[in-house]
């Protein structure tokens, strides 16, 4: 295995960007280049993650690639997935030994539509799709299963929300933040029974960019690189009727493959858009809530960029290592209803 590290991370997110995707992403890409001193000519590979369904345009990433200033042309690829999987593709590319550096970005501008309804088009188009069950409704069903089984309580969900919002205070990108008491949150009405407003993600436009580098470059451009010790990603079955909504076996397989629990984890950034999903993921990954700080950034709950949230988690976890606030961190990304597809990365200082 070739040593590869996250050497820079930058992100933008706000409820609405009155800019196109190129304008929205160019400053983020510029930020990671400035942070490392690596210009377009120094970056051997570029990979991005986005969705045509958010842009409302076929081949939308073909436009956004201009944000990298690809003149002359670049070695580049794109996944129609969260940017975390673009980072995986880039990490594999660096493992070939043919590239030393990679720029990765993931972004989504979901404000022009209703994201929760757009996500209904992810369902299988023959059986579930025509029901037009929206993302909050489907997540609510999962929460209901977990509540009925005693996996979580509404109070526990509110605790997760309160802790996340408190953590989000120190994150300038946060969309939702503040000091809220659990009793106060529980007094709020249901948005989608059993979900209250604090249980669902704070949707945002924006994106994240990360630079990966092999040892030779990493040690030159970054004081404390976040070494990627491993990345694994797995998929579960799609069909809701064939799933156990209380489980995400793919997350557990990925965590086990990486021996996540073999050593102390200082920080875990989990891509849990809904409060109950953080509880579910902590169990699947085998996290010890006493030893590990979960979502110190406020997590996807307090600022959720569709197609960028997972890469943001990787960037936030890496940034803690960069700043010397953590020695070993776990980052997670998810895709699909009920946490269907999961990616786990382990990084060390």
């Amino acid at each position, binding site marked *: 295995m070739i040593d590869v590290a996250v050497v820079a991370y930058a992100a933008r997110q706000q409820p609405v960007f009155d800019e196109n995707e190129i304008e929205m992403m160019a400053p983020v890409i510029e930020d990671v280049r400035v942070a490392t001193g690596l210009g377009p000519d120094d970056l051997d590979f570029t990979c991005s993650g986005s969705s045509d369904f958010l842009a409302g345009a076929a*081949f939308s990433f073909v*436009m956004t690639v201009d944000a990298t*200033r690809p*003149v002359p042309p670049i070695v580049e690829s794109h996944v129609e997935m969260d940017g975390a999987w673009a980072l995986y593709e880039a990490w594999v590319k660096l493992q070939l030994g043919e590239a030393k550096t990679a720029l990765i970005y993931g972004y989504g501008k979901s404000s022009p539509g209703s994201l929760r309804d757009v996500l209904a*088009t992810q369902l299988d*188009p023959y059986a579930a799709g025509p029901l037009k069950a929206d993302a909050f409704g489907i997540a609510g069903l999962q929460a209901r299963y977990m509540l009925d089984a005693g996996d979580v309580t509404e109070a526990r969900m509110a605790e997760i929300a309160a802790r996340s919002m408190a953590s989000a205070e120190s994150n300038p990108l946060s969309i939702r933040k503040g000091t809220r008491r659990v009793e106060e949150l529980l007094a709020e009405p249901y948005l989608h029974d059993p979900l209250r407003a604090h249980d669902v993600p704070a949707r945002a436009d924006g994106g994240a960019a990360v630079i990966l580098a092999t040892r030779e470059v990493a040690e030159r451009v970054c004081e404390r690189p976040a070494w990627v010790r491993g990345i694994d990603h797995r998929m*579960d079955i799609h069909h809701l009727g064939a799933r156990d909504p209380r489980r995400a076996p793919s997350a557990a397989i990925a965590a086990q493959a990486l021996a996540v629990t073999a050593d102390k984890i200082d920080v875990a950034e989990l891509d849990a858009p809904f409060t109950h999903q953080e509880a579910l993921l902590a169990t699947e990954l085998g996290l010890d809530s006493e030893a590990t700080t979960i979502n110190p950034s406020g997590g996807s709950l307090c600022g959720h960029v569709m197609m960028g949230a997972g890469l943001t988690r990787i960037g936030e976890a890496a940034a803690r290592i960069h700043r010397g606030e953590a020695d070993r961190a776990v980052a997670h990304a998810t895709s699909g209803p009920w946490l269907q597809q999961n990616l786990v990365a382990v990084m060390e200082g």
Partner: protein
Amino acid sequence: MAKERCAVIGVGQTKYQSTRGDVSIAGLVREAALRALADAALEWDDIDAIVIGKAPDFFEGVMMPEIVLGEALGGVGKPVLRVHTAGSVGGSTAIVASTLVESGIHARVLALGFEKQSESNAMWALSLPQAFQTSINAGAGGYFAPIIRRYMAMSAAPELVGCLVAFKDRQHALANPYAHLHQPDLTFDQVVESPMLWDPIRYSETCPSSDGACAVVLASEAAAAVAPNPVAWIDATAMRSEANNFGGRNMVNPAASSMCVADLYAKAGITEPRREIDVVEMYVPFSWYEPMWLESLGFAEKGEGWRLVEDGTTRLGGALPVNTSGGVLSSNPIGASGMVRFAEAALQVRGMAGEHQVDGATRALGHAYGGGAQYFAMWIVSAAA
């Protein structure tokens, strides 16, 4: 760590046609995957990871359909990646899959490209109004027609070269059971007389809209050693992308293409492509792109590519057969079309191309492009390890 060698040990395709109303999207991709597995004598459990490629999700109306399709491809509990690099995606998907093997991470990877255009409407999907942009509402043909006219002016190529390409590829398609268009009675005159759609592109010089899927099984050296059928070794791969809004672009011979070709040949140790490559499967959705890519790929001098069409060099039986499968002009399941080129190149060097086999082919080029000729993916495969 030395790079692992990677081989194509299985290829599977569906019959390309306008509408595969008899199968779901999952059924379509599964059909191609099962054929690729059968070719490689493998079961679902033997596959370590899956890479799915397709063009815009609007073509079926399912957002990120890999989430739905993973199960049909045996992907539950496995890594599943979804690539989208515009029209070049089929090629890029195979290349991303090859890196999973070459890096030593996986031993056997299934790469699959598909499109089920009949589920939606491609012309609509490509014409959605865009914020901050003027819509030309002209489809792909309207975009490429001025570029082709520019090539015709620069090369002073005879006006009917495009018709020659279209007629040749439709004849080639007759020898490929999977090809969408089988037109045994088509004459050259009918091609010439077909309606002008986007001057200078006639109806018969365009690709059809197809439903279809194509899969390849890629394997490490150890896994390839036990494959029952001949394998195709991947000598080199290359990808390049260029800007969308850049006034300095050479649209006829894009810089991304030239750079991709140079990178590819350097990696494969090719210095004389005409002599060293036996057969080419290139992405030609509009007839004139054959002479244009012949030049960009170094098979002809600038402005001379059309001569290889006119003198029959690129026909099956010629010195440099191009698209003996019938090419994109005879079948266009968009998200799979690039992979079909890569897979057909592999079939040629495996000696398994059937009626459209080029005798003694040992080295082949697979080529795909996408966007406004901005995205390029290519590979060289050979029979020798």
